[in-house]
């Protein structure tokens, strides 16, 4: 329970802490791991040598993200009517689907909920409870994909010391979430929706480009030249909303301390590296740990881990089988 609370606090912006108590099993694992230093190094190098670098999960994810967005586009362009609307609200073969954050802001601003709005919101809520909340970010959001590509450029520039990365406090996103909710209630306008690159990009794909893409471009520039993945990490309330929704999700990336050599490759590729704090030596209190609600289930860490210490898992499924 305390781990669960810590994860929620971590999502809201708190810095990860060292566990007060490490289970006996983990103590034993760590003892065995470091008992013979030479063997440990040998095993580590062995794992490295045999690691086939794959982009399996990244490729699957990009395919799903592109396919989902194209389904929106073609439903309109070719009039195949499978997924009509945009990411903010749509109908999948007639069933209402409504983005949770957009729905929240309409409810707060308009202060009236009609049946279709409720049905659509509830359906999507269930969907993301099952599929793991922030999976929306990495598997659906079109801005995530663009930002992922420009992130490469940013890292390249950082590598050559042309730009430096500026980190903000992660709690900023929580402040944004509260401020935008407050603004919706007080002003009666869904203000976040007018600057959300997720909505802007989704509509631009489906209904054609507009001036609003200039704003998305500015955000990407900011991320390339100032701060790595700034929008997703420090601003976007959609991520926090979905994070909260997926807090109890059975679908997660889990960490198995037994297989980890604590080298930290995973933290370097992660959008939300604080969720991988458990991979630091001495931070894992249990043998197996879910990465928690802020993890976008993007799978980059799963791809890069040379030892299989990080994997996709459905909670409880292993026990059932």
């Amino acid at each position, binding site marked *: 329970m305390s781990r669960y609370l810590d994860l929620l606090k971590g999502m809201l912006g708190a810095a990860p802490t060292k566990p007060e108590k490490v289970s006996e099993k983990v103590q034993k694992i760590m003892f065995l791991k470091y008992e013979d230093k030479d063997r440990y190094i040998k095993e580590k190098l062995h794992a490295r040598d045999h690691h086939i670098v794959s982009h399996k999960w990244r490729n699957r994810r990009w395919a799903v993200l592109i396919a989902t967005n194209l389904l929106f586009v073609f439903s309109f362009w070719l009039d195949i009517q499978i997924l009509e609307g945009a990411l903010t*609200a749509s109908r999948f073969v007639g069933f*209402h689907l409504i983005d949770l954050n957009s729905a929240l802001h309409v409810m707060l601003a308009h202060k*009236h909920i009609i049946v279709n*709005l409720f049905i659509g919101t509830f359906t999507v809520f269930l969907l993301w409870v099952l599929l793991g909340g922030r999976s929306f970010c990495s598997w659906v959001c079109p801005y995530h994909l663009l930002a992922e590509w420009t992130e490469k450029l940013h890292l390249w520039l950082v590598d050559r010391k042309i730009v430096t990365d500026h980190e903000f406090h992660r*709690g900023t996103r929580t*402040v944004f979430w509260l401020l935008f909710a407050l603004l919706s209630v007080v002003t009666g306008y869904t*203000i976040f929706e*007018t600057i959300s690159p997720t909505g802007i990009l989704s509509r631009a794909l489906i209904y054609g480009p507009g001036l609003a893409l200039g704003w998305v471009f500015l955000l990407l520039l900011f991320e390339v030249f100032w701060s790595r993945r700034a929008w997703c990490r420090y601003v976007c309330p959609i991520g926090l909303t979905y994070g909260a929704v997926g807090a109890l999700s059975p679908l997660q990336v889990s960490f198995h301390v037994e297989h980890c050599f604590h080298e930290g490759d995973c933290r370097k590729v992660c959008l939300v590296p604080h969720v991988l704090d458990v991979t630091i030596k001495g931070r894992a209190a249990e043998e197996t740990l879910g990465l928690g609600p802020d993890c976008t289930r993007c799978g980059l860490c799963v791809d890069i881990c040379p030892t299989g210490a990080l994997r996709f898992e459905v909670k409880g499924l292993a026990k059932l089988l």
Partner: protein
Amino acid sequence: MSENEPRPAAHKPAMSIEKAQKARRKFLQSVGLTAGIVGISLLGYIPVSSARAPRLRPPGALDEADFLSSCIKCGQCVQVCPVAAIKLGDIDDGFGLGVPYIAARDQACDFSCDAVQCILACPTGSLTYEKPDFLKVRAGAPLAHAPILKAKEKDAEPSLNLKERFGVARLARPASCLAVQGKGFKGLARGADFEGEMRYVDVDRWAPIPVRDHPYERDICDLCVTECPIKDAISLQPFVNEAGDQRFMPVVQEQCVGCGVCEMICPVDPAAIVVDAQAVWKEAAR
């Protein structure tokens, strides 16, 4: 944020000076980021508050402020419109970004969907058949009775499920109106390049065709009257002008819903008759 910023208090030995400075810088930058993004987001209020002319919203739209607050910006109304009359606002519309509107002169709503499909498609009730009780109804906005669609006049149910108008037509430039000048009209109403569409019942009851494929020939121009999709919304009235000549003039009547077909079809440029977006019926408002 440089070397000359105040040193952190000396009684905090738990954190090195460098670390404290870093944390402080991070905090200030985070505050800056918050202020910057919120500031930019509030810029959207400028186009909303200084709107020169209100946008013509799709039929069944709530009053402007409620419309902007309830619209989820998904464009499902855009997708169902058979004549593609509905467009979405861009970033220069401020809070109206992604919110649907109709540019009547380019493509008016001609109700060729028969059932006001955009209202049916709206997931949030921004476009609605039945306004919720807590929203007030502006005087002059309600229609005296359900508008009768000329195309459906012989059907068992000829009316549209529309309780309030979304605009009112007005003869804005009577001097340029062909009927007022005593002129007829022959040819394509909007020229060969015009891309707008309309449903002509005698051509095809179910599918709209381009206006440029439908030439007209009239002794006295009455396109706004004959092409109006709503019954009893506009008529051609005789009058005697200052020179003593017998002339005609289109007169907008109380059943006008504000669809904008008259503005689209008017062959003079700029249109002699225009639709005033979000306007109410003045006589009823008094």
